[in-house]
């Protein structure tokens, strides 16, 4: 009984965590699924967003502006990865690793130290919720509202002429070029968008926990990938709506599973190993069953 009790106590906190990480899961899904560009930049753009937001808030910049700046910083990280691939023709995974490694140094430069505490400063949550800022339900509602707004905006965007051109690049680059679409331009756009979403997650997490640390991105990619896979197993990716909702639903469920595992007495330090094994298993099942690969686009 105490296990169940411990878990139930954790549900709201875990929910908060998962709706924030859902933005990063979206930032992982877009390059992988819609652009067919396996991208690891999230491990760099996520803490970049958190560090930029924290540094600015600690410098008494308005939290709105700090969050927007974090968004732009993440977009730049995505553009850097895309540029390395497009103009130096480096492997996409290597591009991401280079950028996330370099961002580690940049993040320390941005903050002037390896971490910043924000307890003394007012964050986006304090600004928007006022006296309710201590109320976890209100904070969750705020992030869920933002998440739904972003989902609707993405759903609209990917049906516009520009959004469709971006998806065409992910489907077949030869086809895209033959239809007058610049592969370079839309790869930059897609990775910029993904970086912005990942950085937004980092900025929200830093403000929610009132703390940013240079190592806060460690494991974001694998957790996000696990979220995307869980979501896609549950609702599929048959339509654009499902493809966009999958990372969000997947994040919410995946983090509850993790929380339950912790309540069972699992060591937090073992989580990365288990998450990795889980992702490998999910990727391996279709391969071993002869149904092609989960992450291959076709």
């Amino acid at each position, binding site marked *: 009984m105490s296990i169940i009790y411990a878990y139930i106590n954790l549900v709201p906190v875990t929910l908060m965590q998962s709706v924030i990480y859902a933005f990063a899961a979206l930032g992982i899904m877009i390059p992988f699924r819609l652009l067919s560009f396996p991208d690891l930049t999230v491990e760099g753009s996520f803490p970049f967003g958190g560090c930029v937001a924290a540094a600015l808030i600690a410098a008494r910049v308005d939290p709105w502006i700090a969050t927007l700046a974090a968004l732009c910083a993440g977009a730049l990280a995505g553009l850097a990865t895309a540029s390395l691939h497009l103009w130096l023709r480096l492997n996409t995974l290597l591009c991401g690793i280079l950028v996330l490694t370099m961002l580690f140094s940049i993040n320390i430069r941005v903050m002037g130290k390896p971490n910043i505490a924000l307890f003394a400063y007012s964050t986006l949550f304090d600004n928007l919720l006022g006296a309710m800022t201590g109320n976890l339900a209100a904070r969750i509602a705020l992030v869920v509202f933002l998440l739904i707004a972003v989902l609707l905006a993405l759903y609209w965007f990917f*049906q*516009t002429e520009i959004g469709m051109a971006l998806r065409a690049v992910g489907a077949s680059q030869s086809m895209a070029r033959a*239809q*007058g679409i610049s592969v370079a331009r839309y790869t930059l756009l897609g990775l910029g968008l993904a970086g912005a979403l990942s950085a937004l997650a980092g900025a929200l997490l830093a403000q929610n926990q009132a703390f940013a640390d240079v190592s806060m991105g460690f494991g974001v990619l694998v957790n996000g990938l696990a979220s995307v896979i869980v979501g896609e197993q549950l609702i599929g990716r048959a339509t654009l709506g499902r493809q966009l909702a999958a990372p969000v639903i997947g994040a919410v469920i995946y983090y509850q599973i993790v929380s339950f595992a912790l309540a069972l007495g699992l060591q937090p330090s073992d989580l990365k190993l288990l998450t990795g094994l889980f992702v490998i298993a999910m990727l391996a099942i279709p391969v071993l069953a002869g149904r092609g690969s989960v992450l291959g686009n076709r």
Partner: protein
Amino acid sequence: MLDARALRRAFHPGTPNQRVALADVTLSLAAGDFAVVIGSNGAGKSTLLNAIAGEVRIDSGRIEVDGCDVTAEPTHRRAAAIARVFQDPSVGTAGPMTIEENMALAERRASRNSLRLGLSSTARRRYRERLAAIGLGLEERLGQKVELLSGGQRQSLALVMAVLTTPKLFLLDEHTAALDPKTADVVMQATTQAVARDHLTTLMVTHNMQHALHYGNRLIMMNEGRIVFEARDDEKAALTVDRLVHRFHLASDRMLLG
């Protein structure tokens, strides 16, 4: 409509693997010409087509389409004037996207993309009409993903997409080679209908000798990166497979059997 002058392209230059794909090719197509290019493997047919499309850079030479020098333009800039059907149906269409989305992408080949919605009900009506004309029932499946279609259906869609807006130059890259003979004939029928209807200036690469003799008003044979034989109109009409093969000692089994 197409003016390609002295095209040269060598792959792996300066290495033991150097291969001259285009030695010195000059080719002009007048408006309404339907030229069919044949030749054995490695003759340079595909390189010629890819050079014109923009996918392969040329070492020297000059390519004009409708009076505009496009030599330095990348593929996507040439796409406003050039439409293309690929050999592999899965390359020429976007599998994870719906039929109507594919049509919309093709319709915007020459336009700039904006943040307007990519589909509208009037556009859907247009697509339905065009798809109904090929008689495969695709007009009832507008919202389905293209990856659900068969190879023949996909290639027919690619064809409809290519001629949805009238291109100045129409490139066909062995576009029936991946299909079974019956489907290949259906796609070829649709091709000639579209070419005739819009008087398209067309360059078709093929391995199929029957198709080469049967379709088009010009026949171009390539060998080792050069055009070695050309026939047009009456002269072309008088050709037979036997005569071609006999005269040019074509060794390629694929051409004989195709």
